[in-house]
């Protein structure tokens, strides 16, 4: 059996932060967002959805979520929720409770409208070029600036 050399955990995790526009669901985020995600799971039960819809704030106050997290949930600010440790598979229970398609919820995290995002997907999706590495993008921008 081929063996991989043991990876350095710090290097392994640091690389994740170099991906543009992406929050990898690391243990650190999972710990921070524990109650946001467990709240989102509670949306799978119809009686909870009903109580939440009746008074969102009151329902959120039953959970050990920071004020910042509650505000982000009320605004449906999914990028802020990812920063606070939310995970999209958990948050998708809130998309369902709101009755919006998964892809539409994804579009709200980008700089596009839902019709623009849908068209991008039909046209083959977002290209990997220029979207792989923050470091590489900065280096390319610096090289271009020097040329000019």
């Amino acid at each position, binding site marked *: 059996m081929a063996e991989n050399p043991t990876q350095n955990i710090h290097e392994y995790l640091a690389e*994740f932060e170099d991906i543009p526009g992406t929050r990898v669901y690391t243990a650190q985020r999972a710990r921070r967002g524990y109650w946001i995600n467990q709240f989102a799971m509670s949306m799978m039960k119809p009686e909870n959805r009903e109580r939440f819809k009746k008074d969102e704030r009151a329902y959120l106050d039953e959970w050990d979520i920071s004020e910042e997290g509650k505000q982000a949930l009320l605004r449906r600010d999914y990028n802020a929720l990812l920063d606070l440790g939310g*995970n999209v598979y958990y948050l998708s229970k809130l998309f369902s409770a709101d009755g919006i398609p998964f892809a539409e919820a994804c579009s709200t995290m980008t700089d596009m409208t839902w019709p623009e995002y849908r068209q991008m997907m039909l046209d*083959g*999706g*977002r290209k990997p070029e220029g979207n792989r590495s923050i470091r590489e993008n900065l280096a390319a921008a610096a090289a271009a600036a020097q040329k000019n």
Partner: protein
Amino acid sequence: MAKITAGVGSSHVPLLGVAVDQGKEKDDYFGPIFRGYDWTREWEKAEKPDVVVLVYNDHASYFDMNIVPTFAIGCGERFGICDEGWGPRPVPEVEGHPDLAWHIAQSLILDDFDMTIFNKLDVDHGLTVPLSMMFGQPEKWPCKVIPFAVNVVTYPVPSGNRCWAIGEAIKKAVESFPEDLNVQIWGTGGMSHQLQGPRAGLLNREWDNKFLDMLESDNDDVRHIPHIEYLRETGSEGIEMVMWLIMRGAMGKKVKTLHRHYHIPCSNTAIGHIVLEPAE
């Protein structure tokens, strides 16, 4: 003796389940996706597997943040269908094969894989969508299913190398089961997709096809692709492709490709599908 006779790789996008449940498989949007599965549906009717070891991931449906098993095997008699927030899919209950499942679990543990065992388990679209893609809408699924759940959500997820190795150990376990059984192993999820953040919507046709080429190859280079490459090249959820390596690891060194299909897009996702058989 039981034998693994074939491996199937397939995406498991939830929207495909919706398309089946609402009879949209032939419309303009879904037609090109489902036509790529016509071959496999006919082939499965002839193959009649007794058991499918179905490698999938739960999408915060039955599992929550309380318990995060890296590799889990369903050893129960039957598995319910999750309500993922809009009612359970109208599909038959999934029947397990506890004798083979417990045999695989024991064999894997003796081979140094620290398995989590589920007796009660409800399964989500990760498992039921591939069943619908391969078998359509029968009243009862035509085979027994052993759910094999992999954590590909909370990092670190298992390495491609570890996934391949556990696939090899599953093959060994199946081949030491005394009953004559025709067993298939399916690896599901992927291909490229990112469902979160400003980079959502990333797809990578070229990389996905390179990955399919690597699965067809006699060498095992594919097992050494690091997580960061999946993440950069195929989006944050493209990491699900490590589950295909469990299937590939269970095929042995050489494989013959029986069928292959690729289509962009389905919702946010690139659809990939491959059928392999061991060739040694």
